[in-house]
């Protein structure tokens, strides 16, 4: 990120924090809206005692692990759905029925299945990341320029080679975009999943400090989620630049 970009971010943040501060003066209850100063203090305290970092790391690792697991299944399946009528007909109905169900809707059932621990948030985030990846990959694979496939066929490539050498690289930008959507959705699911189903992580910490009526600390963890969400998205955009430099022409950043 260039210095100019950093300044723009800082300026936006400063305006936001200022508005927040004014708002906190107007809202009488510190429980409803603590001032940014109180939240900064909570950030400092939880930061210093390692609580913030520990929980953030746990949530981040869970998110990345479930993203990778979801991609390992959704991407190959999406490629098949995008390129094969048969697979599409087979999977379309169940996918379209499961997709609208929010991951967190499975929490009660998952509690019976997995109990409290790593497995429940992993499952919920896997579920949440799975469908954006599947649908995005399938759409990307279906939209590959026919002429490119024709060109590869005239060079004597077999079906599997064409999949590997043409379909996958051509669909890669679409796959990476769907990964960004999947990560954003996973962050929204992580809180809910850890809120009930985990003994640690950012969602757990939020719920814990809520029960302690410590709103500034709750806000500190919320801010942390926002920052991590931003950073993971930034990371994925950076990855797109490295993996698909050829597809970056129209990108502003």
């Amino acid at each position, binding site marked *: 990120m260039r210095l100019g970009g950093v300044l723009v971010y800082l300026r936006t943040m400063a305006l936001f924090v200022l508005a927040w501060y004014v708002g906190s003066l107007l809202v009488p209850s510190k429980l409803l809206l603590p001032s940014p100063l109180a939240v900064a203090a909570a950030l400092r305290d939880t930061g210093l005692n390692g609580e913030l970092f520990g929980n953030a790391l746990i949530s981040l690792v869970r998110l990345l692990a479930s993203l990778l697991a979801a991609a390992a299944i959704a991407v190959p399946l999406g490629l098949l759905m995008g390129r094969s009528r048969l697979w599409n007909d087979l999977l379309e109905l169940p996918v379209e029925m499961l997709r609208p169900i929010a991951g967190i809707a499975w929490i009660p059932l998952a509690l019976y299945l997995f109990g409290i621990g790593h497995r429940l948030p992993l499952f919920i985030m896997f579920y949440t990341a799975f469908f954006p990846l599947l649908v995005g990959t399938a759409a990307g694979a279906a939209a590959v320029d026919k002429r490119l496939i024709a060109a590869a066929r*005239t*060079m004597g490539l077999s079906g599997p080679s064409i999949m590997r050498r043409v379909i996958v690289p051509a669909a*890669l930008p679409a796959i990476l975009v769907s990964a960004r959507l999947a990560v954003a959705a996973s962050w929204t699911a992580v809180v809910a999943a850890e809120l009930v189903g985990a003994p640690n992580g950012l969602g757990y910490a939020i719920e814990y400090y809520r029960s302690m009526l410590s709103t500034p600390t709750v806000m500190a963890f919320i801010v942390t989620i926002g920052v991590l969400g931003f950073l993971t998205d930034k990371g994925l955009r950076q990855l797109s630049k490295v993996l698909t430099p050829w597809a970056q022409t129209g990108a502003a950043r």
Partner: protein
Amino acid sequence: MSAPKIRLDCVSKSFGGSVVAVEKLSLDIRDGEFLAIVGPSGCGKTTVLNMLAGLEPLTSGTMTLNGKPIEGPGAERGVMFQDYALFPWRTVRGNVEFGLVYGPAGQGLSPAERTERVERTIEMVGLKGSHEKYPHQLSGGMRQRVALARLMASEPEILLMDEPLAALDAQTRVILQDELLRIWGQDRPATERRTVVFITHAIDEAVFLADRVAVLSSHPGRLKQIIDIDLPRPRGDATRRSGDFARLCQSIWELIREEAYRATMN
């Protein structure tokens, strides 16, 4: 003359029942022949080429290669597409080496030989120094030369080319015409030449390169006439300046003039 390399027998192609792109086209393409196809825009040239490539099924008629029906694409028939069909995620080098690395064309070549051929082909089309550029970083003419190099690098037995030099400036075009004749094998005996089907809009180009020029007429696309180009080989700048050359160009122009005007006025 021996049996034809490729035979089109009463080939028709229509799209969606209504658009008749090609109608009852019969044509023999000889082994080692350089055949040019000219005709007004929309007369079905690309459609014929796609059928030869095995990418489009025929609506009726038969099309054979060495006596066997063409049922799909094959690496012995290399294609250069009118819109280039370059792989946007591969650099110039990545595009040119594609067929050699992933297709059967590179079998029997050592990695060193492969690299050498890729380098030589890129140099031949005048793209030295642009190896690592992506297609979107190239001009239209440069992209066309990448497509040309990609076809040439695989050295297919039959070259199917759809307006391969159309986007080039006049000088580059002349150079690559000469180069194309060399690759085709104009200095070799007729039996050792490749077979080329070359679509072009430029009559002078067709006359300069080809053994025969097939003139198509449009709506529906039919074979209007085949003209033998008996200019002596090897051909070069002297050919371009000769009176016979001008006369042949003139007679083909007269064949298609009326239709070209009609197509333009529509």
